[in-house]
């Protein structure tokens, strides 16, 4: 006869996956978010492929600037990954420093995105109209980069919290890894947003 535990032990790893529950649940959330972004990018691809004309992104956006934004996210993903390693080894100060750098990368990314949006809006782009003749061009741009920017903003808040907790001596390596999964996902989504909205 089995001992039949009265409740699930949430602080123990999931028996099926040998991974912390935080990690399993974060992956589940990221999967649902993946489907959301697939829907958005798929809808964008559909609209663009079925439109007779579409502005060339390189002629509207500063692709070098966006390339630099991509570089920033890649760097912040790398510092995040390193922070997970130092958190596992219990190096509180280094973890705090690496997390701080990750937050800084996210903030810089947001600043540049704000700059790009302002530039685009000053050129006459609105949610439902723009000077390039295809209204859906600016609609899809604002909705998709805006939704991604919202994710970056949430990530910055999330990681700032984790950073402060680490510096207060409440460093939880599993928690840092879970936060890292979210941050890498934001980077992963940007890879596709960058490719489909700016390069193609």
């Amino acid at each position, binding site marked *: 006869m089995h001992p039949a535990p009265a409740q699930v032990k949430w602080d123990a*790893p999931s028996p*099926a*996956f*040998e*991974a*912390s529950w935080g*990690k*399993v649940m974060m*992956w589940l959330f990221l*999967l649902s978010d*993946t*489907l959301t972004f*697939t*829907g958005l990018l*798929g*809808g964008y*691809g*559909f*609209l663009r*492929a*079925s439109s*007779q004309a579409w502005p060339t992104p*390189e002629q509207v956006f500063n*692709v*070098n600037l966006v*390339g630099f934004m*991509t*570089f920033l996210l*890649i*760097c912040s*993903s*790398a510092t*995040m*990954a*390193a922070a*997970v*390693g130092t*958190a*596992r*080894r219990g190096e509180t100060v280094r973890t705090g420093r690496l997390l701080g750098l990750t937050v800084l990368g996210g903030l810089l990314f947001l600043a540049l995105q704000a700059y790009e949006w302002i530039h685009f809006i000053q050129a006459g782009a609105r949610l439902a109209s723009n000077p390039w003749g295809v209204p859906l061009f600016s609609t899809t741009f604002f909705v998709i980069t805006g939704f991604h920017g919202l994710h970056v903003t949430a990530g910055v808040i999330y990681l700032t919290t984790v950073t402060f907790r680490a510096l207060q001596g409440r460093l939880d*390596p599993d928690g840092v*890894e879970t936060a*890292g*999964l979210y941050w*890498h*996902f934001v*980077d*992963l989504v940007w*890879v*596709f947003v*960058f*490719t*489909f909205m700016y*390069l*193609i």
Partner: protein
Amino acid sequence: MAEAGATPPQGPAGTAPQAPGRLGANPYVRTWFWLLVLTILELLVVFLPIPRTLLVVLLVVLAVMKGVLIMAEFMHLRFEKLSFVYSMLSPLLLALALLAGIFPDALNRLP
């Protein structure tokens, strides 16, 4: 880039979940480097005088390569138990089904 130290970085998939912590920073630097190379390639490929369809395919392949690198290395999927990997990746088939379901219409039906 050779890793120093007693712990080899290429542990088999499905080892203990704390495996990434023992790896040190080097694999991350390597992943960062390759992500950078692929990004620069993406920016350069745009200027190639090749047919647009080929360009799109090339860019999608490069983007997927970057995505796989991020998931395998940064998100540690390489070190998770196989049941975990399959559970988390199989729903992506739904995303592919969604795309496969709408794209034929984009190319055929609308003017």
